[in-house]
């Protein structure tokens, strides 16, 4: 019984757009009302957007100077088609770039950055 009286008073206030009811009171009342009639949000589909990144420390490939998140000059599509690879020395290159480099070396291939022997990181 007391509940309905309070409710009625609140609505009456709101209809008259009275500002003399303190905000906290209004919020409290509303929250109180919420206990009675709840609104639920049901998500049917959440289509999100994300960007991917190779988590390399550097921005660009040391050989082709193209972004890691881009692709090497020979490739058209980044990502799976043009992966990057880390050497044992922790330097990263586009796979295609470093392979070209390695294959062009006559002796044992060295890392283009630190001149240590190039080994793919396992």
């Amino acid at each position, binding site marked *: 019984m007391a509940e309905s009286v309070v409710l009625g008073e609140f*609505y009456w206030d*709101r209809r008259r*757009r009275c*500002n003399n009811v*303190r*905000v906290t009171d*209004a*919020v409290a009342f*509303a*929250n109180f*009302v*919420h206990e009675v*009639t*709840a*609104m*639920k*949000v*049901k*998500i*049917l*589909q*959440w*289509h*999100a*957007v*994300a*960007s*991917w*990144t*190779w*988590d390399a420390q550097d921005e660009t490939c040391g050989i082709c100077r193209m*972004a890691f*998140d*881009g692709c090497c000059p020979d490739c*058209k*599509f*980044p*990502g*799976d088609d043009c992966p990057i690879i880390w050497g044992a020395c922790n330097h990263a290159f586009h796979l295609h770039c470093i392979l070209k480099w390695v294959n062009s070396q006559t002796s044992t291939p060295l890392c283009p950055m630190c001149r240590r022997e190039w080994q793919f990181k396992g």
Partner: protein
Amino acid sequence: MHFMVSRWIRVGRAVARHVGTVTASPSHKPASRRRCSNRMATGSDRTHTPGEAKPRQNLPTACPFPPTFDFGAFALRLLPARSSLGCGRGRQAMQLDDSDGALDSWARFCALSGELVGGAGDLSVGPRLAPVVADLCARGLATLVRDYFLHNLEETFRNNAVRMFWQKFHPYSSSSAVERIKFCVQESWPEDVLSAALEDICLEKSYQEKCVLVLAHALQSYEEKAQNRKLKAVECSSSLMPRYQLMVSSVLLTTLPLSFPEILNVYFKKKLEELNTMVDASDENDQLVSHELFGQSNVSAWDSKMDIDSQEKVISESCTLVKNIGKVVRDFRCLGFTSMTEDSYSSAIIWLLKSKVYELAGDDYRIPVLGSVKKWIQVVPLQFLHALLTYLGDSVDYDSGLSGLKSPLASRPSSFPGIGVPSQALLRWHMRLEYFAYETLQDLRIGKLFEIIVDYPESSPAIEDLKQCLEYTGQHSKLVDSFISSLRYRLLTAGASTNDILHQYVSTIKALRSIDPTGVFLEAVGEPIRDYLRGRKDTIKCIVTMLTDGSGGNTSGGNAGDNLLEELNRDAENQENADYDDHTNIDEKQAWLNSESWEPDPVEADPLKGSRSRRKIDILGLMVSIIGSKDQLVNEYRVMLAEKLLSKSDFDIDSDIRTLELLKIHFGESSMQKCEIMLNDLIDSKRTNSNIKTSLLNAPGTVAGQEEAEISHDVLDATIISSNFWPPIQTEDLAVPASVDKLLSNFAQRFHQIKTPRKLLWKKNLGTVKLELQFEDRSMQFTVVPVQAAIIMRFQEKPSWTSKALATEIGIPVDSLNRRIGFWTSKGVLTESVGPDADDHIFTIVDSMSDVNKNSIVNESCEAFQMNEDEGESSVASVEEQLKKEMTVYEKFIIGMLTNFGNMTLDKIHNTLKMFCAEPSYDKSLQQLQSFLSGLVSDEKLEMRDGLYLLKK
């Protein structure tokens, strides 16, 4: 000598007296005559000086009017006789007799001619006249006889026939313009009057002609005799008739009332109209009959017989009509009105032709009219002219002798139905009428070209007509001028939307392409449109929209026929053909053939522009040329594509792939590379999504334990983009609800596992969310952006939030929250009330239907709502914003430049930047710089005066 002179004077007076009796009204007596006779009476010595008076002798023959009786001339004509006689006394006596005889016969001649001319149709004086004339001629007075006779005729003609003739038209001539219309309305008005008047005057004329013949005969017989006796005689008989004709026409023409040509015009117009309606009726009849014929083929023989009968009837009717007209024309001709009548009926024909063209052409552009106009020309005016010319006997090739001078236009062999081999005159008429019809139709169509092009694909018959007309008349420049002016007036104004202008431009291109395949006129017409479009900011956007909206969802009202995508398609086909051509071109023989088929540019072409550029009219090329470079277009397309792809909630991109393939053909693969990657990202995302979902489902241990009643992973989809290849994306921090956040991080983790070492970075403000709000008594579905979803989900915890509290909770600025939350208040889900601070609002969930204004939402509650689009928020930075960002680097250069130099022109700034900006190198176009500078001007950093930029103080 003195005596002689006084005798002559007496003779002169006697003759003058006779003349006076003949002339009916002394007031009509020309002043010159009176003056002359006075002179003779007073200063008679003048007659002795032939040198002084000699020019007078030439006067009568040179003057087109029959000479009034000139006494001086008379006296002079006597001179040769006198001088041949010498000065002896005996001879004087001879001459005296002679003069008396002359006077006698002159008096007799005067009386007889008066009788002849004045007599009503009585030619019996002819035989009596002959000896008198012979006598006078023998005395060397032949010319005098002729002139006097003609003068006599003139007076009679002028006073009787001519006055009567003009009096018949008097009521019309003397009435006001308004009353004249009343005359014109009367059915048989000019016809009756005209034919009656003509009949009268022709009767009179033919009688007078007979009189002339009588005299001519008399003169001739004398001349023949004179020739037999080897006497010198003046040839008068042959010139008599032409002189008479000349006299008649000059009398008529000098007394012509001003309104007479008008009357003639009205007459011919009426007659031609009559003929026209007659032919029209028969045409309709024909159609009717042929219709019946179609229905009942068994009685076709009878029908066709009737058809022929009816046609014959019409032909005979029109024949009599034409005969009447022909009679009038012939009468006018013999009165010397040849050119006036010809003018009249040709102007009437042309007037009729014009009204016919207007009637046929009208404002309907969906029917070709040229054919029917041509047919009509053959049926009505040419038939009429043919009949008229044959009636007048002109169709006997009067210019066959001039065959060498035949107009080249007329050399075209043509035959007319029912006429057979046409005469030269008819051919000329045909050419003339056709040219006029072409010109009229062309002017009509050119005047309405704007409207015609507005509904182009439907109005192509009108365009085709116009094309033919222009081929004939060659007045292309008229088209260009008038079309440009109507474009400026109607299209290139601030009120027209860019979309409309572009659509009209495309239609113009298509229409003019069919009129003139060389593209010269299109170039001229298109230039103002292009210039104007370059000044509009949203041109690129509109063009790209036109390019991409091929699927048919064109909401802006443009019809699908204008779609550029189709053009892309066609272009692709052409491209393939062109490639094929290139291969065969290697063949030398083919190359030779190609070079043989070369044609020079039309004469109207602008020689400054190479002919290569207009070889092919390619709509897309023209569109791109508005923008300036294809890179700009591709860039804009990329932004739009990104926008479109990011707001997609499924991965259905088939139509985009198709568009992209077409664009690749046109703009080259390399420039569309980034767009291709974007589409590829979508395809990859789809695959990755299903991959991750199955892996998440297969590993329930990690998920199921934590969130029992929470959202399942089925709900989440993700577009995973290669951000390097997408246009810059606007990111905004957003705290999504914990449950979603959890979902996202799980997803990212999975991704990391599958695609090591790649990581996902969420752009949480982007994407779309479909959700359902469930109340006790209703539920509503919405499709919103994540921010809006995050907002509404907060209201699950608390039904009322202040905007500040909500903003901090969600992690976005308050003003942006206020903007976004407007969506929910507009849908009636939340209500807004003013809080204690002016800028702190309270939002409360509207929990039951009874509490809100029902009308506003009842209808909406069941619908799935679209995203609120008029927020104007885009997930991708627009091209201008990108440009602005890039250009800010140069701002301090520009400011520095302007402090040093004071003021600079756009070109100078551009060149200086190009020269001195090495790092970062300056690679912007002049237009880009200009738009950036105008941005600075509007930011009040710079000022622009007379094309000079200077610093704002």
